[in-house]
């Protein structure tokens, strides 16, 4: 009895360690939204938030084009305007929910609708290392200059990305799908005035 107990109790620290190591995979903020606005919109611009409260028609168009139904009835565009009121850049935070948790990408659009920047802003504790591996492989730079209708699959074909390994490549695919979703939302919902 004593020996059996001894063996059992000697293993006692294991579940305690597992309790901390295998905790849920909460969302982690990789880059703050504020930082995305500061980094990607011209310095000195006045900032505005344009909120689109979705109506039936736009929800239907989003479902048809992007093949998903938004969770949030409000879509927000963050605008940087110069002193004359001209829009220099527009930021949209697009999100995709996966079984591993959400991935959010901050997309900055130039006035012509092309992407000037794409930054992953949100992942989870579990997906963060995979996301960072994809980001460090130069994935996000490949989206710069892309416009609505562009093929977001092209950056995934780069050998730096194809060689990432299974899960980082999967996250790269999720990021690409999120960028595509953002391009569609911008195209469907953003109007100059």
């Amino acid at each position, binding site marked *: *009895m*004593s020996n059996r*107990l*001894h063996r*059992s*109790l*000697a293993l*006692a*620290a294991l*579940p*305690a*360690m*597992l*309790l*901390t190591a*295998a*905790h*849920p*995979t*909460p*969302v982690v*903020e990789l880059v*703050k*939204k*504020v930082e995305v*606005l*500061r980094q990607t919109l011209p310095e000195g611009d*006045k*900032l*505005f*938030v*344009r*909120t*689109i*409260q*979705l*109506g*039936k*028609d*736009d*929800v*239907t168009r989003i479902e048809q084009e992007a093949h998903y*139904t*938004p*969770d*949030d*009835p409000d879509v927000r565009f*963050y*605008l940087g305007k110069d002193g004359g009121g001209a829009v220099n850049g527009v930021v949209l935070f697009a999100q995709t*929910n996966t*079984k591993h*948790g959400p991935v959010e990408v901050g997309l900055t659009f130039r006035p012509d609708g092309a992407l000037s920047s794409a930054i992953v802003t949100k992942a989870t504790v579990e997906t963060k290392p995979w996301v960072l591996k994809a980001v460090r492989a130069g994935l996000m730079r490949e989206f710069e200059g892309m416009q609505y209708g562009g093929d977001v699959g092209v950056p995934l074909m780069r050998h730096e990305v194809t060689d990432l390994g299974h899960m980082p490549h999967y996250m790269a695919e999720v990021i690409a799908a999120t960028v595509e979703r953002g391009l569609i939302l911008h195209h469907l*919902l953003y*109007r100059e005035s």
Partner: protein
Amino acid sequence: MGLYDLRRADSSVKLGAILFLLVLGYAYVFAFLMVKTWAGLTPEAVQATYVPAPRLEAEGLPDASVTTTEPLDLRDIGQERHTVDRSLLIQDSHIHIMIFSIVAALQTLIILGLGWPAWWRHTVIVTAFACGALDFAGQWLMQFGLGGFAFLTIVSGWGMVAVYLVVLFGTARAVLARPSAVETLS
């Protein structure tokens, strides 16, 4: 099979028991900080984490979207609340309920040697197992939209802490008892 007596057990058994509880307490400190950071400690905060936002139903919307543009104060872009959706809760449940049961089983092994009366032993053992199960029962009920069950998750969480403290106190008492005192007591 008779119960054993931790007070008379080999010093290695005592060492294993007390170290298990101390390391478990160490883990619980971080579990507390985790919960405080990601879910909150009040029923309102716990509900906001686990009760899903209502799904967007096109039927309730106007035909056309409504656009408003306002000046932005960067301070208004705060940190977003962490939420747990169904898939994340499945992921959490599959590991946590198992670990909670293993921890309760190991606590039970210790409890068996503490010389407690059967009614108290059974109460603490049942509470140890129940708290882990009810913690996630509360989370699932909230996931199904029953926000009032936040109290169940909160009470179960504190219940696990209470069981831990009771077992730690009983174990420390048994391990640290001097042999002469043990003999007198027994």
